[in-house]
């Protein structure tokens, strides 16, 4: 049995988080003395598929049907089931993102398999098949044991650093017979966001709260983000007030993010906000109130007026980038 992993790509470019998932699958395969197989769907060049070998999979299965360039979760699930049958896979891995969340639960039901959504660890095989995941939007972690024979995991992106090796994978075409219902959803129009750093996938995030005083000051946040190559985010009151679009809202009722660096400007740090961001590796808090609760959750803190500090920080980053 081979560990099977679903790979995502954007217009033929494999996403970084998918390399993470591939490496994760390969590591699990090593632990149980087996191989790992990557499944790639849609239009993509063989030269790009070859990159998967460096992250530890021995085989790449490619379903080159261009209908799969759009998210058709039922078709994706059919392809995963077909690949799992071919490879005798008992462990199936996808990403904990929009695609993975639409596909993995279907596969789990079809195979009567236990699913852990948003795994943060490798399975602990001493206690069964136990994975760590965040619960209560990051306020705690749970250790979940999968008790079924077949196991399905969605991996949280940015959980393991990439360490490419020198492995090579064989590439095979896979033909899948799809059912009528697999393409039941008709896509009328697609509006892709280009250029901006996507918030959920961002490694660096600059976020503003009510302390920014108004939408007219957001240029300061954007300048810093641009200089860093970071995505921008905001707190709930800011999104509710319409200062920023809702997809930027992070917190318990918004998005949960786990970047390497989260810079919070003018955000006091309510428990609901912390829940959405406390998985960040490093947190910088800039706030004029030295008693702001967010400082307790921060690695670095700056007390002062955001309007004055942000331009200075942007300038310092610019200087650093020039001398690097």
């Amino acid at each position, binding site marked *: 049995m081979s560990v099977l992993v679903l790979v995502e790509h954007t217009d033929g470019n494999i996403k970084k988080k998918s390399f993470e998932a591939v490496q994760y699958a390969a590591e699990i395969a090593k632990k149980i003395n087996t191989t790992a197989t990557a499944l790639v769907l849609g239009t993509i060049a063989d030269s790009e598929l070859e990159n998967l070998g460096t992250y530890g999979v021995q085989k790449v299965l490619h379903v080159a049907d261009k209908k799969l360039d759009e*998210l058709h979760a039922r078709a994706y699930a059919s392809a995963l089931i077909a690949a799992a049958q071919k490879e005798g896979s008992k462990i199936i891995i996808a990403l904990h*993102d*929009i695609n993975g969340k639409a596909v993995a639960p279907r596969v789990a*039901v079809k195979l009567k398999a236990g699913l852990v959504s948003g795994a943060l660890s490798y399975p602990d095989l001493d206690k069964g098949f136990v994975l760590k995941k965040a619960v*209560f939007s990051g306020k705690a972690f749970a250790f979940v044991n999968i008790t079924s024979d077949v196991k399905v995991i969605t991996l949280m992106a940015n959980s393991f650093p990439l360490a490419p090796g020198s492995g090579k994978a064989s590439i095979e075409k896979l033909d899948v017979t799809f059912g009528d219902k697999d393409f039941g959803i008709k896509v*009328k129009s697609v509006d892709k966001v280009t250029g901006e750093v996507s918030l959920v996938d961002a490694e660096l995030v600059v976020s503003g709260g009510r302390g920014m005083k108004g939408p007219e000051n957001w240029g300061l946040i954007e300048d810093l983000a641009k200089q860093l190559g970071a995505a921008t985010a905001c707190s709930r009151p800011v999104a509710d007030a319409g200062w920023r679009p809702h997809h930027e809202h992070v917190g318990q009722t918004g998005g949960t993010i786990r970047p390497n660096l989260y810079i919070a400007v003018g955000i006091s740090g309510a428990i609901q906000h912390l829940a959405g961001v406390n998985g960040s590796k490093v947190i910088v808090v800039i706030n004029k109130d030295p008693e702001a609760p967010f400082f307790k*959750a921060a690695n670095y803190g700056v007390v002062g007026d955001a309007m004055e500090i942000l331009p200075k920080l942007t300038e*310092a980053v610019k200087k650093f980038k020039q001398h690097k």
Partner: protein
Amino acid sequence: MKILVCISQVPDTSTKIMLKDNDTAVNTQGTTYIINPYDEWYALIRALELKESGVATDVHLITVGKADTEPVIRKALALGGDQAVRIDADSIDPYQTANYIADYAKTVGYDLVLCGKESIDYNNGSVGVMIAELLDADYIGFATNIEVEGTTATVKREIEGGEETDLVNFPVVIACQKGVAEARIPNMRGIMAARTKPLNVIAPTAGAAVTTILSYEMPPAKAGVKMISPDNMDELVELLHSEAKVI
């Protein structure tokens, strides 16, 4: 057209999580429960709007839980909905929950099943998809707008790196997020009416769980914040580079 809205009971967002029994369980003493915000603000309200505009004939609510979840389902009924079903079980995992709900849904035959994009307690976001699979129905997650015409829904949804608009035929399960509707506050008439609306308690069907939570852990405490002078942003950048190694 019949709509089923899945309602999950979750701890209030301000709840500080505490563990008990050697970290094998969450201490729920004193916890205030609310309707999962995504279920309430978006899924339920959109269902009610569809009924108010004459598109939907029936809006039923469903929850899986023991008797202690009744105040939350009554609160949902105060916002609206014709009747509610409580499947009398402490579900162990999403697979079991989805099986209970799908088994019930099959007995009625809903055109549209609405739920929130995830519940804010276990953050799986998987029950809706599982229900769709069990009903052999389509599923659209992360919906930001739902319009219904005849037996077709036009749904705007978030996708990886953008947004798309889809056409989907009934039956369909749609998981809702911000944009689908605006939150409402129940009025006194709604609260009074909710008291007498049917709340049917039914026994769960057979359906085994395939995962179990063995234990919990609290996030590690931060080592303590290092304060930087606002006049020394070069130092902050240097620390982010050489000490934190994030830039």
